[in-house]
């Protein structure tokens, strides 16, 4: 029994190892994704292109313009000649925001003690719109303090901010757990489902099923190489995130690996279930590729926080296995929490595995056609 089983697993390994190109991609995909997420993807708002409109330049408008120019978040673009020009450049996407001074800015502010500044932001992306407006407000506020020549504004409350768990505010802290979920899910679910359905389509499945091993064991033997491959990927991701992205593993490494292996099992059984449901590789790819990618990208909490979603979607996201995995990884890896903090996630993951395995065993047909 065990000898036959080993032979089956070996056969599966040969299949994978022979296909150099797929191997390269499977091993390279997590590396590239870690690098993109770690270095390229950034939620921080930077390089804001701003134009300043001064109908009547004076000392004050120049003060403020100079302060904006000196700020590293802003890039000062050429001075527009009219409000119309500003609108046109905003519409074409040549600038992101505009600062508009009124006439007689200095006179009004100094003598009447009162004036107005207008900020126009391209808020197509509301996040960028509000954040860049806030940056500019802060700069204006500082300049105002200087104009008022105040050391201290009365009743000022000084606020110290501390960002817990992620003091340097690195986006990588947010993304690494997400990439682990995405990569493991894609590799395990898609690979297993395709490789099993492929045998069905090619007709070799009948040969396998005619062997003395029972059908469940045959399918099990097909998942083992992908389990091995996924563990290699897991190790790569962890090494890269610790040594290249400098995201530390605060909690227990053992627990982290345990939860990850659990998730790999889950993804493998999902692939198994898909393979028992469909007949052609193309359908398997559509379901596991297009069907799984969107929910994992969007409903798993990988990029977009789940507690901001409407209730119906929060409930829907509970069905996405990656959501629980990513939540657990965040707790262990970033927050450094122990077993009891992730007990709920572990129980849910195990429950999902049980359901998927039962469903796929019920669906396996020892005969084809």
């Amino acid at each position: 029994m065990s000898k036959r089983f080993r032979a089956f697993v070996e056969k599966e390994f040969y299949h994978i190892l022979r296909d150099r190109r797929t191997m390269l991609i499977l091993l390279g995909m997590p590396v590239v994704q870690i690098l993109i997420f770690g270095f390229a993807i950034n939620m921080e708002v930077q390089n804001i292109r701003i134009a300043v409109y001064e109908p009547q330049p004076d000392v004050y408008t120049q003060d403020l313009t100079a302060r904006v120019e000196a700020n590293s978040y802003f890039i000062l673009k050429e001075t527009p000649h009219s409000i119309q020009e500003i609108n046109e450049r905003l519409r074409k996407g040549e600038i992101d925001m505009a600062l508009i001074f009124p006439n007689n800015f200095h006179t009004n502010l100094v003598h009447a003690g009162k004036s107005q500044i207008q900020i126009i932001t391209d808020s197509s992306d509301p996040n960028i719109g509000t954040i860049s407006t806030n940056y500019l407000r802060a700069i204006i506020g500082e300049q105002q303090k200087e104009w008022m020549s105040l050391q201290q504004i009365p009743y000022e409350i000084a606020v110290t901010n501390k960002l817990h768990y992620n003091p340097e505010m690195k986006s990588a802290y947010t993304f690494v757990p997400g990439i682990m979920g995405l990569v493991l899910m894609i590799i395990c679910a898609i690979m297993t489902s395709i490789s099993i359905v492929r045998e069905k389509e090619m007709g070799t499945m009948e040969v396998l099923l005619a062997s003395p091993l029972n059908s469940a064991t045959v399918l099990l033997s097909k998942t083992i190489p992908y389990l091995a491959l996924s563990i290699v990927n897991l190790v790569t991701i962890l090494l890269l995130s610790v040594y290249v992205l400098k995201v530390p593993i605060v909690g227990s490494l053992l627990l982290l690996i345990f939860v990850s292996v659990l998730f790999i099992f889950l993804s493998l059984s999902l692939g198994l279930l898909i393979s028992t449901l469909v007949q052609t590789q193309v359908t398997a790819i559509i379901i596991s590729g297009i069907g799984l990618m969107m929910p994992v990208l969007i409903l798993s909490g990988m990029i977009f926080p789940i507690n901001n979603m409407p209730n119906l979607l929060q409930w829907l996201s509970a069905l996405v296995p990656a959501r629980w995995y990513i939540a657990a990884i965040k707790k262990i890896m970033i927050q450094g929490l122990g077993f009891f903090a992730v007990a709920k996630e572990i129980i849910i993951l195990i429950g999902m595995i049980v359901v998927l395995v039962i469903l796929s065993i019920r669906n396996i047909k020892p005969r084809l056609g």
Partner: protein
Amino acid sequence: MKTLKYLVEKEFKQIWRNPIIPKMIVGYPILVLLIFPWAINFEVKNIKINIVDQSRSSYSQRLINKIDASAYFILNDITDSYESSLQDMDNAHCDIILVIPPSFDKNLVKEQKADISIVANAVNTTQGLLGSNYLTEIITDFSSDLRYEIQPILKVQRAQNLEIVPRYRYNETLDYKVFMLPAFIVLMITLICGILPSLNVVLEKELGTIHQINTTPVSKFNFIVAKVIPYWIIGIIILTISIFVTWIIYGLYPSGSMVALYVASIIFILGITALAIVISNYSDTLQQSMFLVMFFILIIILLSGMFTPVSSMPVWAQVIAYVNPLTHFIEIMRLIYLKSNSFVDLLRPMGVLILFALIFNGWAVVSYRKSS
């Protein structure tokens, strides 16, 4: 020409016969546009806050009331202990902690200034930052309330009343859905027109039917064009359904040139389909081509500015984003949908899409080999 007609007919029959593709063409855009836009929201609401009030004074009580009244925050606990609050944060009972030190009221009265500290959970950086920004705003507001109460005593300072008037253009309600809907349409077209054709040529290889095609006098050009055309039509159908769905459900319609929108889509789909066929030409098995496609599509999606701004990427990533057709297609869609751009405004990104389509269609024809 006649050969081409038959080839296209063959492709269509194959697609229509698939149990899932025809349903997906209609169902997928509707489902995606109904569900996913609601998921994308960076606006942070219902932030659970713990207040460590070591001052227990009338001032701290006023500040607490002000926070409690704000729509952003839900008061989880008022306590004396910072440690227990940190524990609450570990267990996700609270997202942010405000620490009011013991000397808060004394300092306010005597020195007219005080310190306060905020500790935010920043596992998700954007959320942590936004939460602490909101809280800071409330505190600033609180201190200016106090200032106004005693204003009669203060002399009117010069430059004191500077009013800042912000205008949020193109998306006045600051609704994330408005920003993301055009991107979702692009995402669906990319996934369907990028993945499906890549499975096509290689499937003929696996099933051996490609040898039959190779022995016929069908030219390389006709063969590839026949592969591209059906997906081109499918892409246009998806686009049209999506435009209707976003209009009916969200009331959002392209305020710019509709002609430009369709022209850009047609060119983009031609390009992305050709990219898929190039990958397919180089692969021997479905598995291989699937993973190659996934690999490239994930990269072009992540580096397109769909979810995160291109302007905050490092230079090397911006270079990739610039040669990435998806960046330009999303830009075109957003400019047309939100900023009512006309055809003439969009000539530059349109040019990049044309270049991309020409290169990849040429490559697709050249890389297809009739003899092995």
